[in-house]
Structure formats: structure tokens, C-alpha cells
């Protein structure tokens, strides 16, 4: 017999058939307890992934480094240069040390390589702009914002809703990603989306409840674990520091066709 935890777990892995997925989303929408349980499982999952990714910050052992250098040297001798190296992490690491507030929001969804829905997509901002697989509809205002808005430009997305891309960065797998904030009815949602073949796909959604406007940052400070989850996601995803405005504009103007050069 399949338990509810098993269903929720399979939902996180995108392993439910479409009809079961839709039925479960209806149940989640109607049950705060079920939504809370899903969130707990998702956060635990994100912690596990974040913990595994934390080894990226540990230098390779001498033996493994030698082995990787030898492989790289042998491969480059064959005239190929598209090698995925262990990622250099200093630039984005420095960036996030200097911009802690950017990551201070509560995660409701986190996936490192594929979007994992944690709340029904109807609860995300810009209803109808994101499909159940995380694809941002290109023709929607949200889709147009990700494809064409420069960072920090305020973009109206609908009634009482506006968005702002915060920055653009090269992802570890050689694509482009953008982090944007969307605010509607006092709820701020942060979205990380990545471009692939002309489409933008959501990798993560994070939200803060009604904005606390007493400070300079609209995001509430979240629990340590939530901050770690968001930081772990971005730190894993980012191959380099965010693009400078002129670099970003060049990509917007060419439709994101030029692959990033990862240091």
C-alpha cells in the first residue's frame, strides 16, 4: 500500500503520473497539514542534497587531483576542450558573502538540477505563467521578463504584481540562469530560472510572507536551515559571479544564444 509520505516523496521526484499528480495537488491545496508535510519532506530533501554538494568547497585530495589533471591532460591532447572541470567556487562564494540578504528568504521549493514543485503551481505568482513541469510560458509577462528584462528594471506582470530580475549568471552546466523577485499582495516570491533551447524553466521558488517593511530588505530573515538551503542551491548552480550589466545586455540582445565561458 502506498502511504501519503510515499506519494508526497514521489511528487517531489516528479515520478507521479499526471493524473495522480493533479489529484495530489488538489489534496494539498485543500489541506494545510498536507502542504506542511510536503514542505517538511522537501526541506529535508534539500538539506540532504545541500549536504552532498558541500563537498564542492573541499579541495580535492592530492591523489584525486593528480588523477583529474592526468585525465584532463590526456583529453585535451585529443583536441577537445569542452571539459567540465570541478567548479571554481571563489567568485560566487565571495558574491554571496557580500550579499547575504539576497539569500535570506524561506524556501518552499528547492531542486538542484530539475525543478521540484513543493506547492501547487496555482500558488505561485503569475497564475498560468508556469506550467506543472516548471516551464515558464514564453508569451507570459513573466516569460518576457526572464527573456528580455535587464536586471533591476521593475516589470509589471499583472494586476498588483510586479517583478524585477536581480542578476544573471552562468550555470555550472554551461547555460544561463537568472534570479528574479516577484511581489504580489505583499508576498514576495524569489524565482531562479534557467534558459534551455529558448525556454526558461524554473529551478527554484522561494517565498517570504507579507513583507516586513520595517527594514531595508523586504525579505524576512528565515531560519538558518532555509537560508542554507537557498544558498546551497545558488552556490551549486552558479559557475561564476553575476554578469555585468553590459554583458547581460549583450545576451538579451542575442537571445541567450552565446554559451557562457566558465572559468
Amino acid at each position: 500500500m502506498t502511504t501519503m509520505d510515499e506519494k508526497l516523496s514521489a511528487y517531489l521526484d516528479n515520478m507521479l503520473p499526471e493524473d495522480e499528480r493533479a489529484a495530489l495537488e488538489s489534496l494539498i491545496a485543500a489541506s494545510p497539514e498536507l502542504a506542511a508535510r510536503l514542505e517538511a519532506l522537501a526541506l529535508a530533501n534539500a538539506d540532504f542534497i545541500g549536504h552532498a554538494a558541500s563537498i564542492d568547497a573541499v579541495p580535492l585530495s592530492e591523489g584525486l587531483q593528480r588523477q583529474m589533471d592526468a585525465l584532463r591532460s590526456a583529453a585535451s591532447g585529443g583536441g577537445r576542450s569542452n571539459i567540465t572541470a570541478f567548479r571554481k567556487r571563489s567568485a560566487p562564494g565571495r558574491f554571496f558573502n557580500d550579499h547575504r540578504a539576497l539569500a535570506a528568504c524561506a524556501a518552499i521549493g528547492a531542486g538542484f538540477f530539475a525543478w521540484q514543485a513543493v506547492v501547487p503551481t496555482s500558488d505561485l505568482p503569475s497564475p498560468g505563467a508556469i506550467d506543472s513541469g516548471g516551464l515558464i510560458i514564453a508569451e507570459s509577462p513573466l516569460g518576457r521578463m526572464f527573456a528580455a528584462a535587464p536586471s533591476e528594471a521593475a516589470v509589471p506582470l499583472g494586476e498588483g504584481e510586479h517583478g524585477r530580475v536581480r542578476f544573471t549568471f552562468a550555470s555550472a552546466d554551461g547555460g544561463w540562469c537568472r534570479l528574479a523577485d516577484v511581489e504580489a499582495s505583499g508576498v514576495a516570491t524569489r524565482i531562479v530560472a534557467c534558459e534551455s533551447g529558448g525556454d526558461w524553466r524554473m529551478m527554484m521558488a522561494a517565498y517570504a510572507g507579507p513583507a516586513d517593511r520595517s527594514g531595508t530588505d523586504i525579505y524576512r530573515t528565515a531560519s538558518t536551515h532555509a537560508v542554507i538551503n537557498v544558498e546551497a542551491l545558488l552556490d551549486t548552480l552558479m559557475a561564476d559571479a553575476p554578469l555585468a550589466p553590459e554583458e547581460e545586455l549583450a545576451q538579451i540582445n542575442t537571445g541567450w544564444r552565446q554559451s557562457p565561458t566558465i572559468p
Partner: protein
Amino acid sequence: MTASKDDLHLAILDAAPHVRRFAFSLCRDAAEADDLVQTTIERVLSKGVPEGTDMKRWMFRLCRNLWIDGLRARSVRTEALPDLSLAATESSSAETEAADRMMLSRTEAAMQAMPAAYRDVLALVAVGGSSYKEASDILEVPVGTVMSRLARARAMLADATGYAA
């Protein structure tokens, strides 16, 4: 032959960072994970890969099997020399200390307490990106078992970290 060797090297380089994370999620020790990755790469280089096999999946499988072999060997050593084994655990290298500092303590404690059967399946699916069918093949258990172990593993972590109300 040269071209296929280049492809093999490139595929290994491409998969290695993912395998390293996978190894770390199994071992929970950075130095041990690197040793495991190194042995996995040596095994791929010496034995090759069946044609049409996805390198990352293949390396995950090898890595896990090597890790289990290591556990068995360690178990034998521990039974034979309990005092030496204890002493080895108490001494810590610089790498281990660096890894310890960065660990998320509650998650780490929960992972330490989690039975290997649950941690393995979570590592394969959540870290390795394996489908349930692939995890089922690698672990040689039914898909239903993969599903239930995943749910149980996440529930254990959620309970231990305080996410579950």
C-alpha cells in the same frame, strides 16, 4: 581507438563532480569520498564501460559497489582489531576537520543515524538524479521498495531536523 579514449576521459571528467557528491553522501567523509572516486575512476579506466551505458549512472553503480566492498572489509578489520579501529576514528586529518566544519550539524546527525539502505536510495535519487527504475536496478530491490525507502528517509530527516511538526 584514440577518439574513443578521449571520449571516455571526457565522460569521466564530466561525471566526476557528480560522483564525488554521491560518494560524499555515502561516506560522509571528504577524504574517504575522494579515495572512493579515485578508485571508481581507476576501475572505469581499467575495465572500460559497456557500450551505450550512461557514464554517470555507471560510475554511481561502481562507486556504490566499491563503497559496500569497503564497508565489508572494514567490518572484518573492526572485528579483528577493535582497538586500532577506534584509535583511527579518533584521529582526524586536516581534510576531515575542514569537512566537519562545513557540515550541517543537524542534517549530518540525522544522516549518521539513518540506516544505509535508506541513505543509499536517497543518494541515488536525490543526489544522483536516478529514476526509481534505475535506483531499483542498481540496488537490486523492487521499485516499490525504492519508493517506500525514499519516503522513509525523507521523513527521518524531516523529523530529526525539526521540519516536521
